[in-house]
């Protein structure tokens, strides 16, 4: 029973971690981190709503996240405010809704296991149904990114130039935001609402320390996201700590290691340059 639970948690961590690592790099390059913030907290609010109305937390979280991904652009256009500002406005609204839903949910609120799963994450939340949906999402995500990489990389380099060359930037941006929202919903079940960004951005930050090419950065971030999730799940089992917190510890340790390797590499490069110039 326990080994099945560990296996499910590791499988979920591998998929959610690698998708989050990749998503973190793409969001950072497209400067849409605040959109990821808004969609993540939309997912949190949706999951919290499930405690009140009794629905499926994944489904409601997903609906909230996708709806947010779709409406953020038009809201920003309509209000004539930057996308960042629209995202942070929605972020605040969703935080408020989350707390209201948690307070009005039936039963003992903060002590309940369900609330704990939403706020701090839990490997108990990894059910076979969750794994099936996560696997489907992983396949769709990987297919989309690999198939359209030529156009996506053009947008990552310079969205305005990509648009000037006939790439339909809005469609790709909205699809990537929607996928980022969906990834966040699933990662949220493991890391919890408050720590989901650890899987999104710490592996991306580590990958930038280790690689200089965008493809390598995406691959490295995916791998480090996966590694952070495995370390986190393992630590959580051993120490009986919340899995989200353990993932943050794992991811931050990896970041510290990556930064050290990067510093050593830079020093070695400087030494080589010095020696070459002396010759």
């Amino acid at each position, binding site marked *: 029973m326990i080994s099945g639970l560990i296996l499910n948690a590791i499988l979920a961590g591998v998929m959610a971690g690698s998708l989050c690592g990749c998503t973190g790099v793409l969001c950072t390059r497209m400067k849409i981190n605040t959109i990821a913030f808004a969609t993540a907290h939309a997912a949190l609010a949706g999951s919290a709503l499930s405690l009140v109305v009794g629905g499926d937390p994944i489904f409601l979280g997903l609906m909230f996240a996708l709806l947010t991904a779709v409406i953020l652009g038009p809201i920003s256009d309509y209000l*004539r405010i930057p996308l960042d500002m629209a995202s942070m406005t929605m972020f605040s609204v969703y935080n408020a809704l989350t707390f209201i839903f948690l307070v009005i949910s039936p039963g003992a609120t903060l002590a309940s296991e369900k609330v704990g799963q939403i706020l701090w994450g839990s490997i108990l939340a990894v059910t076979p149904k969750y794994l099936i949906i996560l696997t489907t999402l992983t396949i769709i995500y990987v297919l989309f990114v690999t*198939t*359209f*990489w*030529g*156009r*996506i*990389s*053009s947008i990552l*380099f*310079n969205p*305005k*130039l*990509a*648009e*000037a*060359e*006939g*790439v*339909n930037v809005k469609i790709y941006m909205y699809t990537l935001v929607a996928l980022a929202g969906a990834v966040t919903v699933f990662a949220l079940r493991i890391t919890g609402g408050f720590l989901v960004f650890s899987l999104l951005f710490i592996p991306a930050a580590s990958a*930038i320390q280790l*690689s*200089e*090419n*965008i493809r*390598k*950065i995406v691959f490295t971030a995916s791998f480090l996201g996966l590694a952070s999730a495995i370390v986190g799940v393992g630590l959580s089992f051993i120490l009986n700590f919340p899995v989200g917190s353990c993932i943050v510890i794992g991811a931050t340790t990896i970041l510290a290691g990556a930064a050290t390797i990067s510093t050593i590499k830079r020093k070695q490069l400087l030494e080589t340059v010095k020696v070459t110039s002396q010759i």
Partner: protein
Amino acid sequence: MLKLIQKTVEKDKFCVELQDVSTYYSGETKPAITNVWLKIPIQSLTLIVGPNGSGKTTLLETILGLLKPKTGKIKIFGYDIPKMAVEARKMCGYLPQDFMRPPGEPFSVKEVVGMGLASNKPFGKLNGKDWEMVYDALNLVGIEDLANRPVGRLSGGQQQKVMFARALVRKPKLLLLDEPFSALDESSRKFISETLLSSLVEDGCTVIMVSHDISFKPKRCSLTVKMNFGKIVEVSST
């Protein structure tokens, strides 16, 4: 689709047509360009000149549909802009004014030039022939040896050549250049303005070039448009 584009190109005498176009920036009450009427013939080189803030870049971006005009009509090869902008842009090459990238930019020179082909290929995937075109474009602007270098580590002039190669690799029917010589040395500027642009026009390409430097006029320039305060103040043909 390609046949349709070719037919349209042959049918229309003018590559770009603007009728009473005014463009405003978001939140501004004063237009950036006002009541612009302009027809640019196919297979010509048009130079748009004027001081800083006269509306040259806004005009280029409005032509491409990157900025939506508040009034007026725009056509590129018969396509209504911005309604059919995506289709029209596939025939265009564009060299933006702000091309400089930071040193940490994680893209190589050949990847950046290859991106120029992404919008015109199914799914944006490049094959071996496409990569040959990328190297040809790099060779044309004399930076083939920089193909594998990270683009952010190059000098301003080299980066501008990379963006030039990216515009050229698309084999555009309409090439829009925004201050294309701003970072180039004298010999590169001479080669591009006298040799490269001339051969492009001879091959059927229409070139629209923006420059604040009124004293500089490329060879084969057939139309000079002077702008000031967002308005066209003079159009002269050579």
